[in-house]
């Protein structure tokens, strides 16, 4: 019976000019967002390729060079652009996906945005994810608001019930029909993006990504049909559903982001950098300044080599001192990065709680997480780059210290082959399991809303077929 109702509703809907217009408009928006994204992608890809080639060529052509000079010269770490990244750019437009790797400094996009985390939590760009998360549900609302209410107004509902269909079967069949239209749009979008961007696809992550959207659309379809069944008039159902959409898509996300920022504020960029600088100069506890640390290290190394002065050392003490300073800097960075991460987590917890009121937030966070473009994803990339940077700097400092030069010999040069042998940065995105490990509350919220929608539908089996 449900299959029959589903097929009939689907056929009728697909032939309906209004539905064709709305679905066509949504498809146009999706194509437009894909096209504009594609323009940006091509530009970005070209710029990245050019920059990467140039940086690689420059690095390879360093020739014989001083390792510390090379550490200042630096290199670049690029985050790969994939299909999911193009479907949902998440916070990446704000955080960027290229980091410069160099000695002494952790270059982080988070610094650039540290005082504007509210911006990080909203999507204002016209991108496929926005259409998938906000516009497709709007289409579902327009498809479903009259599904039961209008048939009741027209008397068709009485005929259907008399023919043997139950209200529950009608609601389920109709909701499935609208859902399948939304799924069609989703799959069309993914196919279009795959054609435009191709490349390697993580099928497991893409599968979970599609499942999350499918679940989201199903609950929107079920709730819309339920509201249509409960409302006295189709116009009332439309007003109620549009109100709910506004609350879900605009009001709750905005309020939640602002609440998160006011409850757990992040330091401004200047304050953040000043604090890092201070800790590095004065020591993490404020009683261990850099000159004292250097003096202690000098004594330790002299004792280790059994000599009285730096000039007597068979190695270059400058390299050891730089590495020690680097490692201290790393501790400072870890401390502040940890605090930053903790605050971000607290802000995100507020958003997660808010998603209880608005499943839009849940699917938005899940989508970003699976696309690897959430703040957590960005921090994962940043952490990977930092791990690489530490290894990279240590390699250069060790060369400076033990490569054959003497302390104070800043003009010493390592051979070109050494620089060419250094490993390039490669980033392996963490995948669906990792993404979901941070987002189980959103997944739970989505499932809870789905169960609520099913429960609502089950409770509607006794709704009247008569107008009141």
């Amino acid at each position, binding site marked *: *019976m449900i299959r*029959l109702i589903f097929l009939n509703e689907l056929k009728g809907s697909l032939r309906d000019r209004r539905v064709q217009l709305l679905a066509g408009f949504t498809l146009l928006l999706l194509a437009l967002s894909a096209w504009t994204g594609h323009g940006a992608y091509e530009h970005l890809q070209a710029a990245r390729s050019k920059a990467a080639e140039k940086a690689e060529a420059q690095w390879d052509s360093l020739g014989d060079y001083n390792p510390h000079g090379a550490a200042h010269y630096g290199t670049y770490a690029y985050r790969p652009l994939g299909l999911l990244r193009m479907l949902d750019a998440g916070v990446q437009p704000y955080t960027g996906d290229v980091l410069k790797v160099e000695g002494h400094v952790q270059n982080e996009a988070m610094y650039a945005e540290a005082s504007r985390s509210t911006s990080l939590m909203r999507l204002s760009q016209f991108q496929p994810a926005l259409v998938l998360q906000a516009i497709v549900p709007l289409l579902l609302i327009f498809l479903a608001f009259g599904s039961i209410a209008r048939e009741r107004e027209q008397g068709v509902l009485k005929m259907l019930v008399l023919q043997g269909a139950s209200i529950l079967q009608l609601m389920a069949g109709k909701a499935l029909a609208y859902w399948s239209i939304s799924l069609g749009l989703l799959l069309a979008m993914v196919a279009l993006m795959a054609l435009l961007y191709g490349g390697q696809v993580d099928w497991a992550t893409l599968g979970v990504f599609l499942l999350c959207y499918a679940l989201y659309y199903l609950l929107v379809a079920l709730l819309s049909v339920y509201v249509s069944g409960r409302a006295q008039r189709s116009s009332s159902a439309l007003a109620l559903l549009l109100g709910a959409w506004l609350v879900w898509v605009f009001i709750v996300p905005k309020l939640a982001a602002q609440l998160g920022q006011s409850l757990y504020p992040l330091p401004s960029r200047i304050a953040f950098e000043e604090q890092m600088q201070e800790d590095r100069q004065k020591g993490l506890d404020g009683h261990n300044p850099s000159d004292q640390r250097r003096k202690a290290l000098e004594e330790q190394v002299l004792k280790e080599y059994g000599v009285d002065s730096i000039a007597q050392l068979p190695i270059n003490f400058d390299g050891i001192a730089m590495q020690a300073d680097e490692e201290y800097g790393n501790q400072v960075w870890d401390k502040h990065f940890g605090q930053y991460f903790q605050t971000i987590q607290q802000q995100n917890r507020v958003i997660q709680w808010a998603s209880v009121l608005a499943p839009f937030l849940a699917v938005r966070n899940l989508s970003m997480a699976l696309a690897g473009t959430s703040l957590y994803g960005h921090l994962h990339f940043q952490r990977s780059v930092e791990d690489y940077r530490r290894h990279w700097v240590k390699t250069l400092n060790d060369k400076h210290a033990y490569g054959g030069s003497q302390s104070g010999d800043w003009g010493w040069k390592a051979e070109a082959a050494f620089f060419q042998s250094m490993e390039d940065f490669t980033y392996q995105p963490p995948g669906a399991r990792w993404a979901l490990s941070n987002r189980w509350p959103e997944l739970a919220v989505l499932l809870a809303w789905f169960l609520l929608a099913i429960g609502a539908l089950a409770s509607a089996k006794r709704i009247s077929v008569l107008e009141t």
Partner: protein
Amino acid sequence: MIEAYNLSKSFNGQPALKQLNLAVAPGEIYALLGANGAGKTTTIHLFLNFLKPDEGEARIDGQNVAANPQRARAQIAYIPENIQLYPNLSGMENLAYFSALTGKKYERAELEMFLTEAGLEPEAFDKRARYYSKGMRQKTGIAIALAKQAKALLLDEPTSGLDPQASNEFASLLKRLSEYGIATLMATHDLFRAKETATHIGIMRSGELVQSLRPKEIGQAGLEALYLQQMSQP
């Protein structure tokens, strides 16, 4: 086939139907006449089990509709006042869908036969229902009833909004259905069609069946006079 025993219904304490008793045998057409609010549609809705009676029983083919709604509904076809079909499906597709809901699967030739029997022109079969007149929708509704092979037909103001020719065709169709043994109960304001079509007429006022008669017993002018007399009663 269609029977009411002391059927009563109130809304918010206001009686809408009081102790209605009537019986429509197979092949009979019973027309309920009355002003708006007289209780005609309430009666129909009670037979359809869309409303629960406060007292009494509505029965279809011997089944108490409130106690056995599924069994009773299986025997009922219903055409509302302003029948609406799925506008983006053809008459043929609408008929196929409504029939399939009852569990019946017909071949196209069989569906064509029902539509033809109901009086729909063949060129309209595959035309989308959005282009149908009310008369054409009524005929498709009748075809749905024929395909259901229901024993009871309930109609709510079936000729309202139909032009005289369509109204006349509809009356002929009802007579033909009665020849198949279908029991018909219709609520109407149309005294002329009631007189022409019905085998029994009941006049309702303020929820009560105040008069029941056979059209043969009275002429058209007599029916109108009787009706107006009943309506003018305090």
